[in-house]
């Protein structure tokens, strides 16, 4: 199986603090991966590097069949290449309607002139309606996103992510602030997504990770500490030391 994303030997330093230290990470085109680790392990910085927000000091980040380097691309170009990101805090455009939010995210040419000429096509409309139905926002399409509840905003953001049709999804703590039923639904959605694309989930909640039932990468002090099934990594003495030994 060829890799969709290959991060190798990446290091980044902020003001002398080594946030990522010789990190290597590979994920295939249709794979689910959970990334866990204590606070400050470099989980968010790792996502920042892949999405182009942070440029690493050394190392390589290669993408897709042609092994394009992502380091020379801007955030927008990386997003267009097919990497979608969901932030921990729901970030939707609160001043715009749910429908407008979804149309913004809908896969389409992104330039200013293309946006001027843009008209929502029949298939595009159907897609927006399907996505809205999928996340239970059908009745709220005309409402401003700012009026939605916290949970509904999370759903809207997930729907926006799907509308982008990314090949790799980076999801930061998707279950934060969700009720039990919503968590179950999120799990089901993530598992379903991972059938056709790569999904990387950063999560603190071990129960949630267990339900995802996928390979787990443990980060610690900016590098990979262990990798394997959840049972495998949780029985690893170094992981136990990091998680429990420090108290």
């Amino acid at each position, binding site marked *: 199986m060829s890799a969709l994303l290959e991060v190798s030997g990446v290091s980044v330093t902020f003001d002398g603090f080594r946030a990522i230290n010789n990190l290597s990470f590979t994920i295939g085109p249709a794979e689910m991966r959970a990334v866990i680790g204590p606070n400050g392990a470099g989980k968010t910085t790792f996502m920042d590097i892949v999405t182009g927000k942070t440029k690493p000091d050394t190392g390589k980040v290669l993408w897709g069949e042609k092994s394009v380097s992502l380091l020379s691309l801007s955030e927008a*170009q990386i997003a267009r290449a097919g990497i979608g990101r969901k932030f921990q805090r729901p970030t939707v455009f609160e001043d715009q309607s749910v429908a407008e939010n979804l149309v*913004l995210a809908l896969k389409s040419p*992104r330039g200013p002139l293309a946006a001027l000429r843009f008209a929502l096509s029949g298939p595009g409309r159907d897609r927006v309606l*399907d996505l809205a*139905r999928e996340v239970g926002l059908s009745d709220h399409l005309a409402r401003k996103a700012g009026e939605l509840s916290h949970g509904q905003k999370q759903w809207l953001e997930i729907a926006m992510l799907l509308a982008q049709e990314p090949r790799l999804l980076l999801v930061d703590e998707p279950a934060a602030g969700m*009720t039990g039923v919503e968590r179950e639904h*999120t799990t089901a959605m993530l598992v379903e997504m991972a059938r056709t694309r790569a999904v990387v989930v950063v999560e603190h909640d071990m129960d949630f990770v267990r339900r995802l039932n996928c390979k787990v990468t443990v980060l610690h002090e900016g590098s990979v500490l262990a990798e394997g099934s959840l049972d495998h990594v949780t029985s690893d003495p170094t992981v136990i030391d990091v998680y429990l030994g420090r108290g």
Partner: protein
Amino acid sequence: MTALSSVDKYPGGEPSGPPPVRGSGGEGAEPPGSAALAPRSFLARNPSVFWFLAILIGFTALVTVLSPALGAEVISTSFIKTLGKTLCLCLVALAMDVVWGYTGILSLGHMAFFALGGYMIGQWLMYARTEEIVLTSLAGTPIPPTAAEVAQGVATQIFGVVGSSEMPAIWSFAHSLPAQLALVVLVPGLLAFLFGWLAFRSRVTGVYLSILTQAMTLALSLYLFQNDSGLRGNNGLSGLQNLPGAAQIGQDRLSLWFFWASAAALALTYLLLAWALSGKFGSVLRAIRDDEARVRFLGYPVEAYKIFVFTGTAVLCGLAGALYYPQAGIINPAELAPIASIYLAVWVAIGGRGRLYGAVLGAVFVSLLSSWFTGGRAPSIPLGFYTVNWVDWWQVLLGLAFVLVTLFAPKGLGGLVDMAQKIRTPDRKGAPLGPDDGALQEREAQE
């Protein structure tokens, strides 16, 4: 992509029956929520366009009928010029609203683009007019003047005030109206593009960007104040109200023509911007204003949008300037002092950011009020120990109004329109006000 079709349970866990599945619930049944996405007509998306055009056309007709050009002496030629200039300022305010109200870039340099447009048309107006005068004065000489003599005469006439008789290189195209009209668009456009390219690509945002735009304006203004800038230093360009080759046409008619041209330009710009902003383009701009990092992660080239908007609005400002200064008659470097651009921001803030008619309301309201106060027509208030002279105190009043609007009425004058609409069409979500027909009716609720 239908990979998720197996998980269509309502996430909130509301047991409101199975969600309707497309294609299985009868062909005629519209999926829920489709009304929010149904294509709507241009006017339905932009209810303000109809009212704006109606009021503008009515106003233009009224001014025309009352103008001295048609024999009525109700309003003076100079007042028609004031009105025409105000329409041009409305055009600039529209541009500022797009840049600031929609895209969130507080530019303090758009009046510089406006003045540059004025300078570009002013060069032709002044050159062609001076050439006429020189030709007339040389017509009496026994030997017909050569082209070089005429050019020398024009240069002496124009640049005598700055102690020069050389025609600077930037006047190379001044003899040609098409060339100078092209420069009206090109000079502000290229300057804005260059500035935007440097500033936006370096991700300068917020107050730092405002300071940069202000620095650009100030530098340009100081440069033009120099006599050797080639644009007559602090004298500026004058006599712009005289259209070359139209000496026999009176100012009363010319002023009306420019008034019409300004009104037409304003109407066309309003239509164009309403069209551009009501679609996805406007949606992207507002998204950039609210969270540009998020827009980047959606794949939009934010910098390209900013440069596009900054340059496009600069061109609009240049065109507005080219219409404004022939009505004003004179342009000098003080016109592009930073304070002019700050006033522009004040108009848009008082009128209401993020809505096109708000910018127009603000520009009309503040600039007409300003010319009333500063024109010496506002009565002074004697307080005994001190006399409030509005020419001096108007600025204080305006500053105070700006602070109050920013603090207490961020929607500006446009907020009044919202309030009025709430009374006329209360949002009852389709339900009647009371439990039955005999209950309080909407008409009564207004009172």
